[in-house]
Structure formats: structure tokens, C-alpha cells
């Protein structure tokens, strides 16, 4: 126990705050634990299950990074953050990375000084309305009351959309997704707008899903991805290429079922480079050769993670759509492992 640390913290702050922070990779290794920022709960993306274990699509990214760096997918301290606290938590060093369905935007990347390490889900903002309203296009929503979550990009997109179409609306600001659904189903607003993935997930759980329709218009681009702080490129590379390894694994047909077999060596040089039997890509990252094998071993490749957490077989029931591999007409595309 180091209770004296607490007492002396203010005095010590003066000494150590002046020292340059060591690399995040070294910090994580020394700590033996990855501090990963997640949401306080978004169905399918990050939620603690009945046993208190974090599950979800974003959570899988954290676990893959932990497995790559620390060889243990459970060596993750999940730090729940809200829309308001997520960026300060990352900037202040409380967390090493943020995987919290956060939209990659110019100002967050440049002005807030973060580095987005890729996109793990391409989303877009949509509208849901009760079928009985009989509206077929979002442009007919003049004068509607709209339920919207505060402090998110959806709020700004909504204002832009209505302004550019010269129609008016009345926002009903709401803090969490669950409250928004409650307000919407109680009739407090005509329209509920948020990312289309969340709309689909929530509609699937309505008492009568068929009484509600999701408008065809998608009014924004919402590339969601993990992010790290500016200025530590080595650490950024590790997070970026761990995500790329999951994506490449799907492209090359590396699954959790055949992983062990393929790791023994194959005729495909790219699989060999990915799994460390050829070349020294892991060494360049400051990790060992098996890093990608461990990352894929946690929950399989990108496609498997998608299917188990948010895919069509789950209650969330999302189709791959934009999030299919580029070979299948989607946008999921990893630079080559070479």
C-alpha cells in the first residue's frame, strides 16, 4: 500500500510534472494493464454483461490491443466515459486509448490534438419516425420536434441539415440513448435522430418495431474509430495496426478457427508476415512476432467480431452494409502488411 503517495501527491506533482512523460507503450507495459476508455453503455458496442464483464464491438478493439501488447486480453482497465468526459480523460492521460464510438472529425483530430487510428465502424445519422405520421422523406419534417442527444456530432449535423433545407424544427435535448427512446415512445417528440446503427438496434427492441420507420436519408458521415493522444506516434501505430490486423485477417480468411494452423506457416506471404512467421513486422512496432496472432486470437477477425456483437444474428441485427470488406463493396480496407 502506498498511502503516502496520496499525501505527498501535491508536493510530488511539482517535481514529476516537469519531467517528460515516457512513451505510452512503456507506461502500459510497466503498469501491466491497458487503460481503455469506453462508453457507459451502448448496446452491442460496449456494455457489461450480467457477470459484470465488458462485452461489445468497441470493447473487442481494447481487448485486441491488450492482447497484442500485454499478451492478455483481460489486462484491460475499462474506464467508462460520458460524451462530456471522454476527451479530457484521454488528454489528461487517465486513459491510453479511447474506443467509444467517437466520430472522426477535423476539429477533434486537429484542434483537440488527438490521433484517430482508423475506422472500425462507418455510421451515418438517420431519422426514425412513427409510421402513422405518414412522412416519407426527412425533408417533409418542417416544424417537427426532434429528440436528440446533447454534446454529440448529431446535434450539429441536425442543425446543418435543417438549415440547408430551409425548414424548422424544435430540439428536445436528451442525455442518454435510453432516455431518448423513452421520450420518443412516450410521444414527447415526433422524430428521434441519432446514428443509424443505434436507431436500428433500438427499434429492434421496441414493443412494436413495425410501427416505426427509419427514413432513407442519411444526413451525415460518422466514421467511428479508436483514438489516441497526439505526439506519441509509436503508440498510435500499435493501435492503428492492431485494428488493421483484425481487418486484414478477415480479408485473408484468417479466422479464430484456423488461426493456430495458419500460424504454423503458409504459402501466402502476406499471412506469414501478418502472423509473424516471415519478416519482423512486430519488432518494428516494438512488440514481438506473435502480436497479431494474439490480437486475432481474442475474438477472431473483424468480421467475426462484427457478427458476434452487432451482426444480423444478434438482437442488434445490423447488416454489414458500408462495413463490409472493400472486396464485397464496403469501405473496410486495410493498408497492406508489408
Amino acid at each position, binding site marked *: *500500500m*502506498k*498511502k*503516502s*503517495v*496520496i*499525501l*505527498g*501527491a501535491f*508536493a*510530488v*506533482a*511539482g*517535481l*514529476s*510534472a*516537469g*519531467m517528460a*512523460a515516457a512513451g505510452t507503450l512503456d*507506461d502500459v507495459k510497466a503498469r501491466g494493464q491497458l487503460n481503455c476508455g469506453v*462508453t*457507459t*453503455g*451502448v*448496446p*452491442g458496442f460496449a*456494455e*457489461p*454483461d*450480467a457477470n*459484470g464483464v465488458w462485452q461489445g464491438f468497441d470493447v473487442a478493439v481494447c481487448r485486441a490491443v491488450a492482447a497484442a501488447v500485454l499478451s492478455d486480453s483481460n489486462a484491460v*482497465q475499462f*474506464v*467508462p*466515459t*460520458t460524451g*462530456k*468526459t471522454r476527451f*479530457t*480523460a484521454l*488528454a*489528461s*492521460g*487517465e486513459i491510453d486509448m479511447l474506443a467509444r464510438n467517437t466520430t472522426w472529425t477535423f476539429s477533434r483530430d486537429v484542434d483537440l490534438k488527438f490521433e484517430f487510428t482508423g475506422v472500425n465502424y462507418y455510421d451515418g445519422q438517420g431519422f426514425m419516425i412513427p409510421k402513422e405520421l405518414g412522412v416519407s422523406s426527412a425533408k417533409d419534417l418542417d416544424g417537427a420536434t426532434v429528440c436528440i442527444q446533447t454534446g454529440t456530432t448529431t446535434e450539429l449535423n441536425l442543425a446543418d441539415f435543417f438549415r440547408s433545407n430551409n425548414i424548422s424544427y424544435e430540439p428536445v435535448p436528451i*442525455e*442518454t*440513448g*435510453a*432516455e431518448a*427512446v*423513452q421520450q420518443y*415512445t412516450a410521444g414527447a417528440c415526433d422524430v428521434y435522430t441519432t446514428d443509424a446503427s443505434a436507431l436500428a*438496434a*433500438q427499434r429492434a*427492441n*421496441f*414493443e412494436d418495431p413495425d410501427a416505426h420507420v427509419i427514413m432513407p436519408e442519411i444526413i451525415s458521415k460518422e466514421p467511428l474509430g479508436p483514438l489516441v493522444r497526439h505526439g506519441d506516434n509509436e503508440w498510435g501505430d500499435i493501435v492503428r495496426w492492431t485494428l488493421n490486423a483484425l481487418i486484414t485477417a478477415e480479408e485473408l480468411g484468417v479466422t479464430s478457427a484456423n488461426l493456430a494452423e495458419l500460424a504454423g506457416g503458409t504459402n501466402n506471404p502476406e499471412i506469414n508476415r501478418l502472423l509473424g512467421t516471415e519478416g519482423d513486422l512486430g519488432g518494428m512496432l516494438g512488440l514481438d512476432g506473435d502480436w497479431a496472432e494474439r490480437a486475432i486470437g481474442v475474438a477472431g477477425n473483424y468480421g467475426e467480431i462484427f457478427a458476434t456483437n452487432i451482426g444480423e444474428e*444478434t*438482437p*442488434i441485427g445490423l447488416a454489414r452494409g458500408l462495413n463490409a470488406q472493400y472486396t464485397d463493396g464496403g469501405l473496410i480496407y486495410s493498408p497492406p502488411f508489408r
Partner: protein
Amino acid sequence: MTDTNVSFVRTEQIPPSPPPAAEAGIVKWMRENLFSSILNTVLTVIAAYVIIRLLMGIVPWFANGVWEAGSMRECRDILAGASGACFAVLVDRWDHLLFGFKYPPEAYFRIVIALVLLLVAALPVLFQTVPRKLLLFTGLYPFIAYWLIWGGSLWTPLMLLALFVLTAMVYRLIGEQISTDMRKIAAAVVGLIAGVGLAYLLFIGAGELGFIANSIGTSGALNTVAYGAFWLMSGFTYLFFIPMGIFVGYAIYNSYEGGGLVSVVTALLFLYAALTFVFGPVSDGLASVVGLELQAVASRDLGGFVLNMILGTVCVSLSIPLGIALALGRQSDMPLIKGVCVIFIEFIRGVPLITLLFVANVMLAYFMPPESNFDLVLRVIIMITAFSAAYIAEVIRGGLAALPKGQYEAADSLGLNYAQATRLIILPQALKISIPGIVNVAVGLFKDTTLVSIISMFDLVGMIRGPIQNATEWIGVYWEVYGFGAMLFFVVCYGISQYSQWLERQLQTDHH
């Protein structure tokens, strides 16, 4: 003249006949209370309609409640369109609602024991008739509860307890049991150490202020102002750290005759030195010899209603003494003490609690070195305690102001000094007047602990808003979980309120 020719005179009284049906029993009560005028009749009918409509909604909802289902969908299938609650979520997640989702289930019993012991420890504080010897247990309780809830080595709380006892002994030794000459020597040594220590701290602090100034930078007008202000403070501190050290050291040395200041500073220095240099090695050493370990639980893993209970209990019990001290300090004749108390109270009362919590959660992390692990729960406890102490101080100041001046003068005329007068005459009366206000603050504070859900801590409300409402199985659950939360809070708050009314009746001295 009276008429004597009376043909009939009753010899016994007529037995009282029952009152007319309209003037008795339930009918009378209803006539008087519900239908006494046209307006009241109308209001009664409206109220009855509203109540019946509410019951028509709520009763079937409760009666149809589903207690066994794996998800919201199964609930709906079982209900098959009928209106009904899905209490299955409470069955599935009751442990998360009470204990948080990360507290190890095999250790729940430790929290239950801690809560039962809390009742025992609270008894002598709440009820005068309970044997006073139980107060000893109350003193030990914080250490027991810490060990039970956070786990780890038993030696940690034991060593802390021993340190506090030793510190109290040092205080008594220096203050009362040594000769003035000896105390003069002690005062010289302690004054020197404290003076040098303070100067060192100020020196470090000046560097820290400069570091903050540099990290703010000069981009933008506001930043430039802050930059200048921090450098100005830094410069002042550099200028004065040696004189301040000398001044404080000399003041401590000079107070050796009274003994109060010297013994306080000695005790604090002793506590600090023991915690810094002796505590860690000795408790680690003892732990390595004899384990006495419970599974350690990190503060982050606390949650659910237990977190509200911990925050509420700890903060109320810390903020009452702190509030008393602040209230007395605000009435003090010494300008420095009075000024510090006034600034503290007015600053804290001028800032919303949620702002303080945000500062505790995110802002402090900027000022601390990245690896300094300053416990989040501890930060929150400090902020909430400061907040409620400021309010309780103002409540008690009201009680102090309500005392007639004669009480103060009577205490003086008996030859009591300040401490005696305050303890024996002033505070017992002032606190009695303040009870309703203090309880009001305490109940409000307990409910305010749910605000920590905003800074992503999973207290009861945080559990509901975050993990439970967003669990894939339980999307769409709403009234059941919030109703459960409201019930838990109502039980505790109503209990506190009933106790305070009972206490007021007990302390009533003006027999009407």
C-alpha cells in the same frame, strides 16, 4: 309564582339516542371533509377520478409483473400485449443495482457485514440510552469498514489506527505532560522543521505554478491573462518562501508557553513522518509475515446503491464536525481564521456541486503527474464533504446566532474559557436548534450522491442509466429500475427524517 299543577314530571333521563345517520361515522366524516361545499365536492370528484385512473394503470402493471424472463423480449412474449412490468430485470441485475457490476460477487457478504456493523456503530451516536462503551466500537468502525469493503491486508487499517492513537498520545505528551522548559526545546525543534518544510513546499509550489503557466501558454487573450496571473503568483511565492518559513517557524516556537499550537504541529509532523517513512515498510513487512488478506477491491469497482451509502455516510459524518469548525471559525475574532472560513464557505456555496465533481474527475488529472493514482472515490468524497460542510456551517451559524447573548455572558461569568464555554454551553443549545437544518442538508446530500453518475461512476443511478438500460437484453426497461431506485432512496431518507423528528422531541426542554 310557579305552576304547581304539573301532571307529568320525568323521573329519569332519556337515554341518548344515536345521532342521525348523516351526522355519524364515515358519512359525517365525508360530509365534513370531502363534500363540505360545492368547491370541495368538485375537487373531491376530480381527485377521485385521477386516483382511480392512476390505480387502473398501476395495479394491473404491478399485478401482471413478470418476474422470470431472460430479456425484455421474453417479458413481452409472456405478457402478450397486456400491460405489465418486467420485474425480471431486477431479478437479473439486483446485485448490480446494489453492489455495482464489478464488485466480486463472492465478496458481497463483506459489504453486508459492513452495513450491519454500521447500524451497531451508529447506535451510540444516535441514541443516548445505549451504553456509552459502544462508542469505542464506533471509533473502530471506520477501520473495520475500510478493511471489509476495500479488502487488502488487515495491517493497513490496523497500522493507521495505531498511528492515530500514537498521534493523540504525542499531542497529550507535548501539550500537557512535559515541563515548560522541555516544551521550549520541543517547540524550537518543531518550529525549525515546520519552517524549513513550509519554505520547501512553497519553493516547489512556485515551480509548479510556473509549470502550469507554461502549459497554459499565451495563445489567445484569456490564456495570456491566466499565464500572467500564474507567473505573478509564482514570482510572489519565490519572493516570500523564505520569510514565510521563518515567520511560521518563529510563531510556532513562540507559542511554547500555551502549548496548544506546538502540540498540534508536533502531532501533525509526527503523523506525516510516520505515514511517509514508517507506514509502508512496516505494514508490508507485517503482511509478509502474517497475511490476514482479504481480496482487494479497487475503488473504481465500487458501485450501485452501496456507493451511494458509502458516499452519504462518509461525507455526512465528516462534514458535521468540519461544518461546526467552520461555523465557529466564521464567528471568530481572529481575522485570519475568520477570513479563511468566510472565503471557503462563500466559494463552495457559490459553485454548483456538479462543477466540483467535474473538477474532481477531470481537471485534477491535468495537475497531477500521470501515474499519481489519486483515488477517484477519495477525490469525490473530499469534494462532496467540502460542499456539505459549507452548507452545514451556515445552518449551525444560524443556530449560534439564535442563542441569546446572555448565554455567552453567563458562560463567561462562570469563568469558563472559550473551549469549555463552546463545548458545555453554546454548542449543545446551538446544535439542538440546528437539527432540522442539518438533517435537511444530510438528506439532500445523500440524494446528491447520485450526481456522481454524471462523471461516469456507476452508483445506483449510473448503473441504471448506463449498463442496465443499454444492455442488449434490457433495452427499453425504464419504470421498473427507476422505481426500484426511488424505493431504496425513500426508505433511507424517510428513516433519517423520522429519526430527526424523534430526536427533536427527545431534546425538547421547554415543557408546554
